[in-house]
């Protein structure tokens, strides 16, 4: 994985000291909250419902064991012994003290981490495929390109005050595991005539106006990747609306201009920029690529999995995915125990995951946008020992991509923007389906919950989505069906009137009963919904 050079480290260290000074001045009353707020937000420090919340960037979700240990130590030293892994592959701490934040950032910097650009109207943490570098189906490892864009976008002066926040995802396989088309810019590394290039999708997003990004260009040569990205941003920065926060995202600009006209303007800007020397030399990309070289895989082709323990066999079937190297798999550590808080991990669990990565996965971990953790390179012969530790530590739930593997934003339990609680609904649903034993029968069913219209819980993209709203001071939950954030990206549709906290759990069960009744062989919930439409579900819910 990428290692800081002296410039990276100096930038981060300098920022820590700058923030230490800003914090001291705030605490001494030399600057007001109005002056300080944009400074702390630039460093990822929010004021949330109960305390300050710090969002730490995990570039494209990749961590080593040293970093995971450090995140655990931070949870113990500065927070209340846990952290929350987010849908942007980051981690958030909920109970930070302002006076201690500079020391926390200094500890992060020691392990090449920071919280810069995790808030504000700038280019945020760049996300990617959590199986990058391991997936059997990828063209190349997309992370070097994500890293190149991370370096380009860090402290980019022209893009520090965009009309709104800006999110980029990079993938390199046809199977989209990063919700790429629901980003401001989605990039897929593709191959044409034996050459690699980038397909650009621009203007996707969730939030109050969900949109699937249209294709803007199907092939940008990789030695023009940064230049084309800059052209996309420049057109947005110039014409994106700054008069209305709710219409300021690039998706609104692309929608209002039309994808064709936006693309035309980008091409015009691109042609101009090509002569400006924006693109870093290819040698820089080659330098970055060396950090993402394959680890020293062993010949594991004779490895077998002893499936005599049925619980283990179930976990293998559910939570491991094929690897590009024979004898290896990527193993998913579930942070979704039945009745648990999706994405939360205790300091102890983080230490355990770090040690497992060191022992079994070439010192690497990945944060999934679905709020689980991946050990990307595990030998099949070592899976049983690994699983036993996960089981003992409450991280062995065999539920990847099932109805118990719920994405949930922090909701009203933690977030000052939320209108309703998300976590208790997730807990009740996972308990209900674990109790009824229907989880296995339902197969792949992605359920996502947001506590407000900002959609941090990706409810628009759930096969089943739930949106919490405030109905005259009472929590109310709308049900959506038919969303997807995979290669077949689609946006869910609201079924009808909302439900109470307990009512939404019943409603989800009724929707799944319709699926079980109506499905054809091999159909997932989403496939059945697409085939039979909304009416049978409405009938079951409201009839």
């Amino acid at each position, binding site marked *: 994985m990428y290692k800081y050079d002296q410039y990276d480290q100096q930038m981060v260290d300098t920022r820590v000291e700058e923030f230490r000074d800003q914090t001291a001045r705030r605490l001494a009353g030399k600057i007001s909250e109005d002056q300080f707020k944009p400074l702390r937000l630039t460093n990822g420090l929010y004021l949330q419902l109960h*305390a300050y919340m710090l969002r730490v960037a995990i570039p494209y979700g990749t961590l080593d064991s040293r970093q995971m240990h450090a995140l655990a130590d931070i949870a113990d030293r500065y927070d209340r012994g846990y952290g929350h892994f987010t849908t942007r592959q980051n981690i958030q701490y909920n109970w930070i*003290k302002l006076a201690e934040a500079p020391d926390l950032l200094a500890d992060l910097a020691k392990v090449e981490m920071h919280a810069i650009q995790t808030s504000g109207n700038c280019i945020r943490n760049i996300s990617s495929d959590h199986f990058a570098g391991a997936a059997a189906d990828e063209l190349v490892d997309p992370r070097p390109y994500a890293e190149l864009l991370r370096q380009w976008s860090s402290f980019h002066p022209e893009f520090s005050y965009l009309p709104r926040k800006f999110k980029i995802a990079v993938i390199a396989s046809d199977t989209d595991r990063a919700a790429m088309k629901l980003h401001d810019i989605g990039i897929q590394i593709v191959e044409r005539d034996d050459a690699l290039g980038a397909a650009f999708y621009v203007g996707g997003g969730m939030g109050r106006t969900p949109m699937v990004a249209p294709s803007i260009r199907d092939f940008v040569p990789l030695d023009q990747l940064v230049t084309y990205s800059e052209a996309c941003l420049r057109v947005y920065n110039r014409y994106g609306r700054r008069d209305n926060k709710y219409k300021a995202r690039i998706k609104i600009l692309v929608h209002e201009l039309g994808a064709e006209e936006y693309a035309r303007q980008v091409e015009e800007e691109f042609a101009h920029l090509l002569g400006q020397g924006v693109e870093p030399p290819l040698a820089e990309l080659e330098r970055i690529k060396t950090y993402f070289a394959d680890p020293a895989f062993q010949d594991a082709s004779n490895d077998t999995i002893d499936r005599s323990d049925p619980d283990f066999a179930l976990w293998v079937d559910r939570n491991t995915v094929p690897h590009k190297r024979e004898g290896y798999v990527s193993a998913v550590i579930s942070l979704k125990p039945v009745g648990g808080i999706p994405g939360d991990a205790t300091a102890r669990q983080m230490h355990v995951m770090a040690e497992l990565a060191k022992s079994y996965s070439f010192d690497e971990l990945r944060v999934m946008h679905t709020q689980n953790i991946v050990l990307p390179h595990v030998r099949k012969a070592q899976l049983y020992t690994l699983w036993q530790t996960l089981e003992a530590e409450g991280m062995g739930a065999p539920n990847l991509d099932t109805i118990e593997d719920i994405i949930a934003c922090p909701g009203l339990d933690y977030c000052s923007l939320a209108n309703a609680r998300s976590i208790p609904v997730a807990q009740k649903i996972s308990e209900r389906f674990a109790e009824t034993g229907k989880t296995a029968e339902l197969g792949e069913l992605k359920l996502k919950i947001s506590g407000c219209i900002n959609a941090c819980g990706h409810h628009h993209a759930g096969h089943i989505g739930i949106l919490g709203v405030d109905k005259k001071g009472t929590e109310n939950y709308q049900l959506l069906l038919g969303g997807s954030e995979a290669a077949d990206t689609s946006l869910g549709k609201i079924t009808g009137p909302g439900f109470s906290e307990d009512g939404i759990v019943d409603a989800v069960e009724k929707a799944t009963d319709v699926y079980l009744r109506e499905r054809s062989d091999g159909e997932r919930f989403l496939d059945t919904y697409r085939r039979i439409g909304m009416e049978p579900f409405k009938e079951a819910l409201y009839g």
Partner: protein
Amino acid sequence: MKILTGNDLKSGAVIWWTGHDWSLHVEDAVNVGERADEIARREEAARRVNAPYAIDAELRDGRVRPAHIKDRIRALGPTVRPDLTLKPADPEARHWVI
């Protein structure tokens, strides 16, 4: 009644105006009537509170209860982590919120 709340500048903890100081406990909050803005300005300038604002509340069984669920969650702590709330040993506390 109107009560005044905000966050402690240094710790970020949720605090409530008691009439002469700030408390972590909403039951200590007093009715500030029309004086919310004046108190908020003064206390913010003294750096004793961050982002203060007034909310509606009622007296129920002699105890102050914020009108909106968001402020009741602020007053107690996350409903999903009773151990981290101000009343970890009180099984009724969650019902007070909901």
